[in-house]
């Protein structure tokens, strides 16, 4: 009898998922411990895209470190640029002009829309709705065209600069943006018609990945992932940067704390972002787009080509970097994924002594082990989608 029991014992099965998997949003690796079809434990393994961005930032001046932030969260590069320049500006103690602040708010919100569109596209594709992917990419291409109109790049833009933005926006861009803000609200219902009351979508999202508000705060969640649990926390609202204190918008929150509510939150955010865009277009003030602080900002390109003093000034700023006050600073901004924080330690030279990045994706990846337990294997995919992670930012 004893022998038979020994033969018939049941054990949990370990299944490896990733790093090559179409639905892990990059190179995330999960080791699933499963009992039949039910998840017992999930262990996320990160680091497959560790490129040493923090270390690289220490060997570059404050100006040169900016292009690295594009490659952190490549889905919303503009927001990451803004996070970096806002932090560096606070460290330098400079204030960009009003027009630059509004332009940054515009590109930041465009970036938020494009990020949420890509999130919806991949999340829906993973769960099984292929058409949403094609619809979302249609509007995303439109936004990328707008980015191209401003700065020539589609994805890795490096448009915001320390002390303002690189160049002023053209009237042509503003006209196209106005057309976009008029047209976009009619496109959102198109996605919603496809999945909002879709029976399969509801089955796959309602009641999946439930995390209470208290637990969500304890896990360090931020952004729409936290707001889906009913916590009204938005850095744009609570510690405004750029022009967010001059525009009106609501912070949507969920009630049921599940994947479906987080999806609804993001859909509302699309509308709110569009609202911010419209207000920015109305209120966009005239004036310069670069702060006039010669110790910290580069001179305009026209002067450099004509004028010896400005050329020397530019040469010194580029080669040695600006002379920065000693000290340390942590500045957080609201990127589409959550709270992106930059922590700089300055030793008085032109390069940061330490650049630490508080990436929302890294924190969110850890919560997978809490969200997936008790659900089925198929729901792991829905849970990876709902926390909206990008591995470039997570592994840095």
């Amino acid at each position, binding site marked *: 009898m004893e022998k038979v029991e020994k033969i018939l014992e049941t054990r949990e099965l370990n299944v490896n998922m990733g790093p090559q998997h179409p639905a892990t949003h990059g190179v995330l690796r999960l080791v699933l411990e499963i009992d039949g079809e039910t998840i017992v434990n999930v262990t996320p393994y990160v*680091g497959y*895209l560790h490129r040493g961005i923090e270390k690289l930032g220490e060997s570059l001046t404050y100006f040169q470190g900016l292009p690295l932030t594009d*490659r952190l969260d490549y889905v919303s590069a503009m927001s990451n640029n803004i996070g970096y320049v806002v932090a560096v500006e606070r460290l330098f103690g400079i204030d960009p002009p009003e027009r630059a602040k509004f332009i940054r708010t515009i590109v930041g919100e465009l970036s938020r829309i494009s990020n949420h569109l890509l999130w919806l596209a991949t999340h829906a594709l993973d769960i099984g709705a292929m058409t949403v992917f094609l619809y979302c990419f249609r509007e995303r291409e439109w936004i990328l065209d707008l980015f191209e109109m401003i700065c020539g790049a589609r994805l890795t833009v490096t448009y915001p600069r320390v002390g303002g933005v690189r160049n002023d926006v053209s009237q042509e861009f503003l006209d196209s943006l106005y057309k976009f803000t008029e047209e976009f609200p009619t496109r959102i219902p198109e996605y919603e018609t496809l999945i909002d009351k879709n029976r399969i979508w509801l089955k796959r999202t309602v009641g999946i990945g439930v995390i209470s508000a208290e637990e969500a705060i304890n896990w360090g969640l931020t952004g729409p992932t936290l707001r889906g649990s009913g916590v009204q926390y938005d850095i744009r609202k609570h510690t405004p940067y750029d022009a967010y204190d001059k525009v009106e918008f609501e912070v949507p929150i969920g009630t049921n704390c599940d994947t479906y509510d987080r999806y609804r939150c993001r859909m509302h955010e699309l509308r709110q972002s569009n609202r911010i865009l419209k207000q920015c277009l109305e209120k966009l003030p005239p004036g310069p787009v670069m702060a006039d602080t010669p110790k910290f900002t580069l001179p305009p390109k026209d002067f450099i080509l004509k004028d010896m003093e400005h050329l020397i000034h530019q040469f010194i700023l580029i080669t040695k970097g600006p002379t920065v006050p000693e000290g340390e600073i942590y500045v957080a901004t609201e990127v589409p994924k959550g709270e992106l924080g930059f922590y700089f330690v300055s030793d008085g030279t032109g390069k940061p002594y330490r650049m630490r990045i508080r990436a929302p994706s890294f924190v969110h990846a850890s919560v997978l082990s809490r969200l997936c337990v008790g659900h089925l294997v198929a729901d792991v995919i829905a849970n990876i989608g709902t926390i909206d992670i990008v591995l470039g930012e997570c592994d840095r």
Partner: protein
Amino acid sequence: MLIDTSTIGLVEVEEGTKVLPPNLIITSIDKVVNWSRLSSIWPVTFGLACCAIEMMAAGAAHYDFDRFGIIFRGSPRQSDCVIIAGTVTKKMAPVVRRVFDQIPEPRYVVAMGSCACSGGIFRTYNTVQGCDTFLPVDVFVPGCPPRPETLMEGMILLQEKMRKEQARWSMWR
């Protein structure tokens, strides 16, 4: 049965291909096999970093890779080609190599983006300086990230390369 080609209307449409109207084509096996291979390249759905987003954009409605017969497949075992879209780190390199090894021959590699070509801006301790250090790369697509049109050009170049192939994969006919 021998056909006396001098008496019937064989038309040479290009070098090595003759057409007998209405629907008989005489050509070499190489041409037929290469044509069918290049008309349906199936890459693996395998994104590493930033370039993967542009690869997705190339596959989506606006740029539409399907019209070249390029359809992304989830499993390397059903694919012909792998697009290395993004930075290859030292931790990821064995995985990339394993994905490549799982693809049935004949197989092709497209290195997409500066990182995959040469390491790009990431000259750090953990980045592989170009995926040609451990993979036989057929086409390098530069850019950080390359636009979807650039990737498209790269795939067309790969098709041109496949069109000219003669001996390399002759064992697998």
